[in-house]
């Protein structure tokens, strides 16, 4: 079972070449196939995740959650998707039309691009970039711009308030996010995500870098605008923040992008800290799915357990706690590597 998908890809490329296609073009066609697979994974994941989040939150609050459509209400999300598809598309006449319309598209494109570098199994990656980790961080931080575009373009006070809040928050938490991954880079000496996975065959980085794991988890929660850091879209006071004016499919694209980001960040956490696709008995592509879903469940757990954090607490927590701690972690890792060499352990 292990090299199933790699064998399939090789067989497909071989078949394309045997049909008389140039190898370069065969690679391009393979990329299109990979893109279709990625988009399918994302869409199926969203349908499962929305249902799962509603069920999990219902479990935490002693409710039943969706339970009418299909067994355990599993078709609820599909019904919701069809409903959103048939809703009218309202662009407010006061809005900046171009920015308003491109914002959700930009958001989803950025979110899908994150999947290009995540190792989905042994040797399984859409594109094996040598700067994969840097690519993930830089492309991931672009979603800030999408939210600002949405808030600014809507020409609505709720939206603008939500947008500036989310920019301030995401900008502040991007720093500890990038810092906490540095310790891992120092140990492996590579930005290639496959190399980072391979470096964890003995010890997972969650054991070697426990502080970085915690700071990364907190910063990632804030970057994803998820509770308890969901100040930017606080429904009770901002009526949805930057998404206030969006309807129908455009709003659905935002929602889709948020969950796409959630899966991507969880997969990156599994890759960088939890040994990626490595694991006994089961094939590698199954391990990454299991680990990713475990982290997603922790995200759900945090969201439905803690109340929303106040804006001033939120900002000062990033600058006064997370930034110094994650900087200290870099120095600690450096000292640790030298100590390890000095003792002759590595």
């Amino acid at each position, binding site marked *: 079972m292990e090299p199933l998908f790699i064998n399939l890809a090789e067989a497909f490329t071989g078949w394309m070449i045997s049909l008389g296609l140039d190898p370069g073009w065969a690679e*391009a066609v393979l990329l299109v196939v990979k893109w279709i697979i990625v988009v399918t994974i994302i869409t199926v994941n969203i349908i499962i995740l929305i249902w799962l989040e509603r069920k999990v939150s219902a479990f935490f609050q002693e409710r039943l959650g969706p339970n009418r459509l299909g067994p355990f209400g599993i078709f609820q999300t599909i019904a919701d998707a069809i409903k959103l598809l048939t809703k009218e598309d309202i662009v407010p006449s006061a809005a900046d039309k171009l920015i308003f319309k491109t914002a959700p598209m930009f958001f989803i494109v950025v979110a899908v691009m994150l999947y290009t570098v995540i190792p989905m199994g042994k040797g399984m990656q859409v594109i094996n970039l040598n700067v994969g980790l840097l690519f993930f961080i830089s492309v991931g931080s672009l979603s800030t711009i999408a939210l600002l575009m949405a808030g600014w373009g809507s020409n609505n006070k709720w939206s603008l308030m939500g947008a500036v809040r989310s920019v301030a928050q995401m*900008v502040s938490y991007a720093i500890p996010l*990038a810092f906490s991954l540095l310790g891992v880079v120092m140990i492996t000496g590579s930005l290639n995500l496959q190399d980072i996975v391979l470096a964890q065959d003995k010890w997972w980085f969650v054991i070697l870098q426990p502080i970085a794991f915690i700071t990364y988890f907190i910063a990632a929660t804030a970057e994803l605008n998820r509770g308890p850091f969901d100040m930017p879209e606080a429904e009770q006071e901002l009526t949805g923040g930057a998404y206030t004016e969006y309807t*129908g499919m455009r709003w659905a694209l935002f929602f889709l992008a948020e969950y796409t980001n959630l899966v991507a960040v969880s997969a990156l956490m599994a890759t960088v800290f939890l040994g990626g696709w490595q694991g006994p008995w089961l094939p590698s592509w199954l391990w990454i799915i299991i680990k990713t879903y475990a982290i997603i469940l922790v995200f759900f757990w945090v969201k439905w357990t803690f109340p929303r954090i106040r804006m001033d607490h939120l900002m000062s927590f990033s600058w006064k706690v997370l930034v*110094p701690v994650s900087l200290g972690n870099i120095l600690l890792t450096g000292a640790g590597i030298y100590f390890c060499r000095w003792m002759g352990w590595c």
Partner: protein
Amino acid sequence: MLADYPALGLFILLTIAFPVAAMALAWLFRPKPKAAEDHEKFLTYECGVDTRGKTWIRFKVNYFLYALVFLAFDVEVLFLYPWAVKFQVLGAFAFIEMIIFIGILLIGLWYAWKEGALEWY
């Protein structure tokens, strides 16, 4: 390695097709209201009350201060990544250099802290 980047470009082009296709699919199904006939529907949403004044006004200066501090640290991240990749090769001298570099930035953070740039009024 260079061949990865054309592939990345192709992937971006394909990905742009995804939201466009979603919007096109929705366009097939959805009702299409006209702004001329349904004026109220296209007003800015503010919980039922007509909006007053401009939205695009001067905003709280705090956000700008955070952005400035962010800029300094974001550039620092840029310097730290190549250093971290080569950390094991460069030796102790580079490590001490980076301690000094981080130290200078911590003084900057301390100054911003002292001046109240990190406080939320």
